[in-house]
């Protein structure tokens, strides 16, 4: 059964329409990659789901409920976590505070502590550096922190926007390893990636967008080996 | 829609014509105009003056009027602003065509509007102005009533000399009236052989004087001559106490004369010297009509009149006498009458010299047990002054 379901979604930044009738769905416990060349509307898809930008039409359902018009905190409350692009953490706050902010909607201190332990077991490095300011961490650590923060509410599903953007190769590998291990624990994951090859490799399924439209879809490995998809990145495909 | 927009614009522009409608006054009345601060920073003292004006006008209108004519009292608000005040006197003179005018409140504004009054030859009483400089510009139509600012600290400095003070500090707000008062204080100090160790001004909105007072202490001044209004005088005496600076004399000008000074400051206000043009004490001052005026004022407004109220009432009494003597409200005749006549008001005798200055003698009082007691000049003093001020520590705790 589809946990997240988008049907014919249209969206715009101000006056520019970015998405044209985009449809996609994510089943429970699935890893789905959304890929495509620059300007394909991948990140926009996430932002429309979270309610950040102008919604023009179409249906967005999460957990069998229409979430169009919900505020981000309400969507989060339904169990959909989101890690925005650019590994933005709260620079002037410690790792621990960053994680606490992730659990802002949770008021039960015991549950927060449990989530915190859970995140620390997932990302031991965060546990070691609880007191460090977010802004002083390395890029890879910040990405871990951003992911950990999104996991604090113990969501059913998380959306990762370009988790490997701007990271050095060593950290890229580490980030993808973490994603795989999260998936193994049964978390539903949707990710947008520039690094299409890496993303498709770990995904059950993938969607390819181009200029705000659905272009291809299929199994992760199927798309990975599709020459047309590869060529699309450099035109003429 | 466009039509209505144009209509609204048209209406708004038509409104702009309103200032151009001239009024004319009935001939059977004497119109008396004033623009005074009902809002803005001078609203409070000016308000007491307005009280007196209304009282006087109602009294006269209930009686025989001026030469049988009722008074038409036109009251405008100058927002404590010079530009507005000038405009308003021009309005009173050329648009409302009043017969006589009374001056506004504060020396600065009076100095500004005096030019217009002079040009239009309007004999004007100036109960709201005390800076001597206003009368040093050869003006013929503005009449002084009260003691000039230069003499506000005369009593305090005499007392200082009498109790053996050698060094005094003079501070004051940086505006026309306090500076005139300071100028007088410096002159009196020179005459009486006191050394002025500090003479400084501070801006109008100043509330924190700790550094200034500490500076006074560092200069070893024994007395502080403060040419101040209410807020700054109150702040200074409070902060003297806070800093435990023990001076022999603290002499304010306008501030201590207000009833709220003693009321709000409690025993901090004790022993403070202040200056007053007049006090509602008929038993001591013995001016004619004083008792009746005080009673009527108190009945109508619930409080005793202070000197602002007294001097403004007096100014209308003088006008009344002048109109009676001139036989009409004709400005030229009234002016001639004012220049030559001699009369007595609730605040004392009135007769001007060539420069239109009246020799009114003010008085210096001291706050004792929360009451203002006249202590100088000696001939009208109620009680002997109690000075030097006792140390702060020796005072009873609040």
């Amino acid at each position, binding site marked *: 059964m589809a946990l997240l379901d988008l049907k014919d979604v249209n969206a715009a930044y101000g006056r520019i329409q970015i998405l044209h009738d985009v449809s996609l769905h994510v089943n429970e416990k699935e890893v789905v990659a959304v890929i495509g060349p620059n300007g394909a509307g991948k990140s926009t898809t996430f932002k429309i789901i*979270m309610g*950040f930008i102008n919604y023009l039409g179409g249906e967005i359902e999460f957990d069998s409920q229409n979430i169009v018009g919900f*505020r*981000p*905190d309400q969507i*989060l*409350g339904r169990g959909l976590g*989101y890690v*925005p692009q650019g590994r*933005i*953490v*709260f620079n*002037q*706050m410690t790792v621990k*505070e960053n994680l*606490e*902010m992730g659990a*802002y*909607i949770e008021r039960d201190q015991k549950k927060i502590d449990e989530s915190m332990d859970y995140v620390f077991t997932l990302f031991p490095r965060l546990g070691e550096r609880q007191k460090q300011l977010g802004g002083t961490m390395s890029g890879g650590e910040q990405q871990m922190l951003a992911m950990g*923060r*999104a996991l604090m*509410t113990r969501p059913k599903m998380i959306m990762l926007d370009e988790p490997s953007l701007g990271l050095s190769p060593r950290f890229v590998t580490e980030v993808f390893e973490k994603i795989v291990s999260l998936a193994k624990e049964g978390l539903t994951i949707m990710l947008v990636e520039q690094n299409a090859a890496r993303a498709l490799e770990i995904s059950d399924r993938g969607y390819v967008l181009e200029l705000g439209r659905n272009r291809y879809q299929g199994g992760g490995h199927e798309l990975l080996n599709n020459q047309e998809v590869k060529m699309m990145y450099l035109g003429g495909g | 829609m466009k039509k209505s927009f144009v209509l609204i614009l048209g209406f708004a522009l038509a409104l702009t014509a309103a200032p151009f409608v001239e009024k004319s006054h009935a001939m059977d009345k004497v119109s008396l105009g004033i623009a005074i601060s009902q*809002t*803005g*920073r001078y*609203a*409070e003292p000016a308000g007491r003056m307005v009280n007196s004006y209304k009282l006087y006008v109602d009294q006269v209108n209930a009686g025989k009027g001026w030469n049988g004519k009722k008074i038409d009292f036109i009251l405008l608000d100058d927002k404590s602003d010079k530009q507005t005040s000038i405009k308003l006197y021009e309005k009173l003179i050329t648009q409302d065509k009043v017969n006589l005018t009374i001056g506004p409140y504060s020396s600065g504004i009076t100095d500004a509007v005096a030019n217009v009054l002079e040009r239009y030859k309007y004999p004007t009483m100036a109960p709201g102005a005390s800076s001597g400089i206003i009368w040093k510009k050869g003006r013929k139509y503005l009449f002084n009533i009260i003691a000039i600012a230069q003499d506000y600290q005369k009593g305090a400095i005499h007392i200082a000399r009498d109790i053996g003070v050698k060094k005094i500090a003079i501070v004051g707000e*940086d505006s026309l009236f306090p500076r005139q008062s300071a100028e007088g204080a410096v002159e009196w100090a020179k005459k009486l052989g006191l050394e002025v160790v500090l003479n*400084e*001004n*501070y*801006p109008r*909105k*100043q*509330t924190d*004087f*700790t*550094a*200034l007072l*500490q*500076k006074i*202490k*560092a200069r070893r001044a024994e007395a502080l001559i403060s040419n101040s209004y*209410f*807020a*700054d005088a*109150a*702040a200074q005496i*409070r*902060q003297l*106490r*806070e*800093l*435990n600076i023990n001076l022999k004399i603290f002499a304010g000008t306008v501030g201590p004369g207000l009833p709220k000074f003693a009321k*709000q*400051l*409690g025993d*901090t206000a004790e022993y403070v010297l202040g200056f007053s043009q007049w006090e509602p004490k008929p038993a001591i001052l013995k001016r004619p009509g004083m008792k009746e005026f005080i009673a009527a004022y108190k009945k109508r407004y619930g409080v005793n009149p202070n000197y602002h109220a007294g001097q403004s009432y007096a100014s209308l009494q003088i006008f009344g006498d002048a109109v009676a003597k001139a036989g009409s409200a004709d400005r030229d005749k009234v002016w001639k009458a004012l220049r030559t006549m001699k009369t007595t008001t609730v605040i004392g005798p009135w007769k001007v010299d060539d420069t239109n200055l009246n020799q009114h003698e003010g008085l210096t009082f001291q706050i004792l047990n929360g009451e203002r007691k006249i202590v100088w000049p000696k001939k009208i003093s109620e009680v002997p002054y109690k000075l030097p001020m006792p140390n702060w520590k020796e005072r009873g*705790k*609040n």
Partner: protein
Amino acid sequence: MQEKAEIRSKYWLALFLVAAYTVPFGIGIYTDNVFFDLQWLADLTTVILNGIMQGGVYAMFAVGLTLIFGVMRIINVAHGELVMLGAYLTWMFFFYVGIDPLLALFLTLPIAFVIGVLIQKLLLNAVVGGPELTPLLITFGLGLTIIHIVEAIFTTDYRTIPYAPDALQISESINIGRSKIISFVMASFISISVFFFLKIHRIGKAIRATAQNADVAMVCGINIFHIYMITSGLAAALAVAGGALVSIQFGFNPETGVLYTLQAFAIIVLGGRGHYIGALIGGVMLAVIESLISFMIPNGTAMVEIASYGMMVFVLLIRPRGLMGPKEN
């Protein structure tokens, strides 16, 4: 190159501050206002201590301004008017009901909080994130309105609340007013409480998070409009508390607010816009400079205002982020 400019601006600011502190001494020596004896040193100490006490109160309401700026990038030019309003509220409770000015805080602070929330809800929420000048004009108009409403009710009379009038003797010749010390202690207490609220409390942390990045805060499930209102309420409460503490020391009338706005703004520019500790340090530094100028320069009291304005303009020019403010991009 950017790093170099950064370091250069730091040196300029340091130089400026050193000059700000030493010039009064220089002029003082030149004009014979400095005497090298113990008595004078005691006087100087008193003046500086007074400045610090004063600065504590300034800092408290400046912190309110910096909070609003940090969270919403709005400069609330009606902040000083809220200080003035606080003084009047305290005065009313004191004179009409007879409540001790400090106890009255328990009543005035909730009122202030509600006022802050209402201002935010009715006027500012709609313009957060829009053109920067709109909120400036709106709060400016609001300030004007508050001044004249208060004036219509209370007139322009100066009012004071006599409170703890005596001096606390620290040594033979160093005395400080009790009301000043009480104010300073209260201001410190409130500032530190707010600091810990921001540091420890869940909502306090959310306020900091929103200030750092509103978008991510939203992603974390923080309703930022809710946070805006709480911030505004908190800032108004700090302003009103400042008013209460000012009212037991000084006279006030409806116009005094403007001065406090400029002072608070000078403080947050110096300390670093949006920076909490910066505002506290800035407040004390500014007040001390003001005291020194007033104490040592002939007619210095008149020049005190120049200190605030000059400080503000200079710091904006040489180092817009002030002492500890975050870097602007």
